[in-house]
């Protein structure tokens, strides 16, 4: 009944999940031997004798000559203290935490914009499709969402690039901002903007509205790609959920009360039809994060996903493991939020 009690219980359930998540990453780092953790934590800048000394220090620090569960404990300790090791890729070389600070804001920006697009498009079209079922527009929407659903996300991106970027030439197809716009700016150095590292926000903070607009336009194609890849599923689920709800007795009662069709659809039906969609939002976040990896790669958008694929191409185990852990953490938090929102929206859940 009490939302607070529910929240606390849900937070306690987080502990085993987080332990499991770190355990998976830890095991992955260890299946091929100690050299992996050394590769993660040895600064790539060290050479020669200094490197040998640092290696010894790491073996001592992570107790690499002791049983594996002891090692897990020391590794977890390092993670909790913000020591996530080093990454060494073509786009960034240095501590993982700094890489995250640089790349994560961009990924969050992209995901949030995509999520808003998904919500607006998905809810509108999903409800419309169910309400006007079997009409021409419903059929068109179904064919469209079915096709999008089957398309690999990279193909959606490439198709948008070809249509909007190459033939119509209305949107830029790569990067976060036109280089000419930002040359010589004091707050934009070596492709990194300060202080938030999200160029749109930084530009607005510095009053550079032209740059902000340019960056926003650069964000459009990646965001639309990501949104289209995921919205198809939402439309399909919402349509069937809405159709199911429209068959319910309480909708019949609502109609028998003489409510207008609009109120029946937009209040009585939609509110119920969205409940199963909310529970699936965790999956949507997983899709967003996974999709971000592909989209950022296609559009050379400097986020966590781009960094992850660079780490893959450059065989940088530190980057891969850190990204896995980070994506896991984001998803865990997102799922927590989803559960809390669900408890808030559905009165039946607060037992």
């Amino acid at each position: 009944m009490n939302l607070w009690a529910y929240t606390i219980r849900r937070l306690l359930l987080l502990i085993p999940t987080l332990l499991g998540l770190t355990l998976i990453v830890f095991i992955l780092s260890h299946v091929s031997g100690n050299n992996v953790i050394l590769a993660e934590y040895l600064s790539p800048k060290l050479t020669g004798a200094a490197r040998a000394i640092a290696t010894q220090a790491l073996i001592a620090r992570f107790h690499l000559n002791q049983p594996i569960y002891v090692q897990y404990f020391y590794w977890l300790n390092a993670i909790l203290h913000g020591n996530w090791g080093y990454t060494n890729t073509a786009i960034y070389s240095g501590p993982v935490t700094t890489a995250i600070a640089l790349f994560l804001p961009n990924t969050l920006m992209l995901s949030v914009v995509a999520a808003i697009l998904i919500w607006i498009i998905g809810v509108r079209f999903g409800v419309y499709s169910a309400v006007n079922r079997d009409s021409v527009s419903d059929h068109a929407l179904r064919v469209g969402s079915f096709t999008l659903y089957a398309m690999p996300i990279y193909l959606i991106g490439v198709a948008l690039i070809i249509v909007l970027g190459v033939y119509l030439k209305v949107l830029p197809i790569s990067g976060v901002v036109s280089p000419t716009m930002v040359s010589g700016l004091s707050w934009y150095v070596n492709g990194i903007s300060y202080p938030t590292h999200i160029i749109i926000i930084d530009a607005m903070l510095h009053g550079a509205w032209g740059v902000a607009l340019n960056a926003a336009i650069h964000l459009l194609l990646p965001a639309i790609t990501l949104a289209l890849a995921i919205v198809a599923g939402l439309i399909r689920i919402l349509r069937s959920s809405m159709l199911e709800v429209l068959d319910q007795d309480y909708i019949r009662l609502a109609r028998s009360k003489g409510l207008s069709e609009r109120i029946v659809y937009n209040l009585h039906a939609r509110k119920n039809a969205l409940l199963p969609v909310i529970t699936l939002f965790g999956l949507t976040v997983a899709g967003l994060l996974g999709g971000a990896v592909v989209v950022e790669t296609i559009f050379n958008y400097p986020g966590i996903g781009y960094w992850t694929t660079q780490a893959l191409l450059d065989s940088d185990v530190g980057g891969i493991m850190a990204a896995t852990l980070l994506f896991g953490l984001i998803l865990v938090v997102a799922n927590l939020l989803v559960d809390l929102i669900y408890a808030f929206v559905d009165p039946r859940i607060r037992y």
Partner: protein
Amino acid sequence: MEYTLNVSNLKEQFYTRRGIYKALNGVDILLRKGEILGIAGESGCGKTTLGLTIIGLLPRNAVVTDGEILLDGKDLIATLREFASKEANNPNLRHSENIMKKLNKQLINVRGSRISMVFQDPMTSLNPVLRIGYQIAETLMVHQPEVLAKRRLARSKVKDDDLREALKLLENGADEQSIKAFAETRQLEGIEEQLLNIWRRNDLGIARKEKMILSLRSERLGGFDMAVLQRVVSQGRIDGWMRIPGLNRMSKAVLIKEGNTKAVELLSSLEIPNPEEVVKMYPHELSGGMRQRIIIAIALANNPELVIMDEPTSALDVTVQAQILDLLKHLKQRFNTSFILISHDLSVLAEVCDRIGIMYAGRIVEVATVDAIFNKPLHPYTTMLISAVPTIKGGEIQGIGGAVPDMRFPPSGCMFHPRCPYVMDKCRENNPQMKYVEDEHLVACYLYEGQKGEQN
């Protein structure tokens, strides 16, 4: 004789992949003002379909091929007949859905205000994510926003002296008329029903009621709320600037809030304990019997002329069933509303109905007073139905031989002839018309041909 509802020769079919089901095959009903008419029959005879057709809530694969439904002389289903005359043989589902939407639009001012319906399963009939109070307030707001507005305005205008005087009147046993007159002379229209509703509550002591009446005077209204209420009173509905998105939501919120207080009064009049708490609850917090009372409250909220109750007690256990039936008897006395009570259970109908109609295979085959149906049943089917009712005295229960016919291929002539022990040759060929055998007693059967002979 004045009739609330006049259904004549109603015919309806369902188109499915397995074939065309002929659900209604010429139903005739005459319903008087303030009367409770029971409809009985086996499952699958079309009882529920009949109820849903009267209120116009049909699935898209239903087609009304013939007949009229007149509510106070006005035909409700002309649109459906028109569609059937165009696409009777092969109805397009898409077109049919559009027709249903058109019908929904036409009936918006009828449903909930003039005809309302109580459905079979109270567990699934309330919206799980909306509060009880809102679900009642909503129907009030849609159909009589001006009543809500007046109530709220009256409370903001009323003075302590007025309330004390009204209380004195009530304590001296003033009737409804004089309270109404009192409210009118003080220009406090809308206060009278609040006074009376509080005064009539049975769940509260007299001291508590006095206190509630004296505290009716509320804080002054804000400028926006005042503007909304005054406009609703003058226009009789939500329109003009109140339909601008955003303002619309705020205007409705003002009315819904008042609807909640009226919902409390409504619930207390239906003997629901703790109505103030109940309106704040969600459906899952209430028992089945409670939920059915809420649904009845929703149905009665706007004092409709006709309430259709489709098996209102079938999903409830026996003690709750008895309570609901008591409530119905009580309602019958208090409201001047006509009821159609649909049930497969004759004993339920016997308890509360004035007349009972027996339905078989999409037709009403006999209509008579409760007494006549039980003591002097004429149609062979009625006789068999009654002998199938278990009584407390015991005695052998007679089942009805055979099964309900497959309505894709209904029998020729009288549809009961394959199961009828008195079947004659002409029963197989012709369908008997409804005829008066006595005053108040109609039957469609050749056994009584020529006994009185006068067609309805």
